[in-house]
């Protein structure tokens, strides 16, 4: 029996472990892949208070080491289901908890087109700063209109031969400064289209089809249409909004009295490293306090 089981070892989950781990309680962190979550993809973190600059990998590793030093157990197992009575079923085992903190984060939203999964790494990418350098001198498209998409366009414009930018005809007014910067790039062409309807190519991506049957030849496609949570497996026990984010009135409690939430996976206005670690700290201290009450 564990006092607290934390699902997810990103910044929110590990911070929860850091706070809970400093008590005499028995804590388990369950992680499906690797610690660190999405922050490991960040080349540079420059907006974390008190740290001038650090790579996402270093940040995550320091946090992980901090948690390990407290003797918190971390297991690499995928959670398949949580029951009402706080039984946690994973790919390897079954655990019983007195309380659970869900910190499963979010992942890049997919287009859900046929062949999309198959072409990841063969032309399709969700991370321009990770994979952009493989497209030196080539032609790419960027789908999306939020801040990340605009930054991707600018980043890629300096590396590749040509960037087709597809802002899906949505307003990108909030980021007017970036839009102005894009306008100054000679190798960026803006394409008016609502979405991509088809991905074409034999062994790799060669062409994309847009609405109205317009086709563009590309070597790469960067999809930057936001994030989506991974909470399907919890919907039997807690409430979520229509996008699958966990609903929490006060930012910590879910609709189940002993299940708490932290980080990107909850309904919130700002998904950042600073807010994720804040959530983790609050969720852990609340869970421990309510165990003692």
């Amino acid at each position, binding site marked *: 029996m564990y006092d607290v089981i934390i699902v997810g070892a990103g910044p929110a989950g590990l911070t929860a472990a850091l706070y809970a781990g400093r008590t005499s309680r028995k804590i388990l962190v369950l992680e499906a892949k*690797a610690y*660190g979550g999405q922050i*490991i993809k960040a080349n540079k973190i420059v907006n974390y208070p008190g740290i001038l600059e650090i790579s996402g990998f270093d940040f995550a590793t320091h946090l992980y080491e901090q948690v390990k030093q407290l003797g918190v157990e971390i297991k690499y197992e995928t959670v398949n289901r949580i029951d009402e009575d706080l039984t946690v079923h994973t790919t390897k085992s079954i655990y019983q908890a007195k309380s659970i903190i869900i910190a499963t984060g979010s992942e890049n939203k997919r287009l859900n087109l046929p062949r999309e999964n198959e072409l990841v790494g063969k032309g399709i990418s969700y991370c321009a700063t990770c994979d952009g350098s493989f497209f030196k001198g080539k032609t790419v498209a960027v789908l999306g209109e939020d801040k990340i998409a605009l930054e991707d366009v600018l980043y890629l414009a300096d590396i590749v031969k040509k960037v087709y930018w597809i802002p899906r005809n949505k307003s990108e007014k909030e980021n007017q400064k970036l839009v102005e910067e894009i306008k100054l790039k000679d190798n960026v062409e803006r394409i008016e289209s609502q979405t991509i309807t088809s991905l074409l190519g034999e062994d790799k991506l060669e062409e994309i089809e847009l609405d109205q049957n317009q086709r563009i030849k590309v070597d790469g496609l960067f999809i930057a249409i936001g994030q989506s949570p991974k909470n399907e497996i919890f919907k039997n026990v807690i409430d979520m909004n229509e996008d699958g984010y966990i609903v929490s009135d006060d930012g910590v409690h879910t609709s189940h009295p002993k299940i708490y939430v932290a980080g990107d996976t909850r309904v919130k206005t700002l998904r950042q490293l600073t807010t994720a670690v804040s959530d983790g700290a609050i969720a852990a201290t609340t869970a421990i306090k309510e165990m003692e009450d």
Partner: protein
Amino acid sequence: MEVKEIKEEEWESIIQQTGKVLVDCYAVWCGPCKMISPMIDELAKKTDTCKFYKLNVDEAEEIAMNYGINAIPTLLLFEDGELKKTSVGLISPDELEELIK
């Protein structure tokens, strides 16, 4: 077994070996690559049915291009010189074990 770094000129002789060969294509600036490499080290220690190597794609651009690698980490599994499986992105230790089965 140790995970050896491949030099571009050794490529052919390494992948043409009999049996299974896993190549971890990485770059020093790639966070997810740094996460997967200790997993591969662990697996290599306890596995004798597969040989493990890593390839820095920034130093072997031609190989990366020939294999159409345009995202990292990419894991290439060869068997008797033939490319059998390709895995792109960060995977779990379990998925990694599954890959070399």
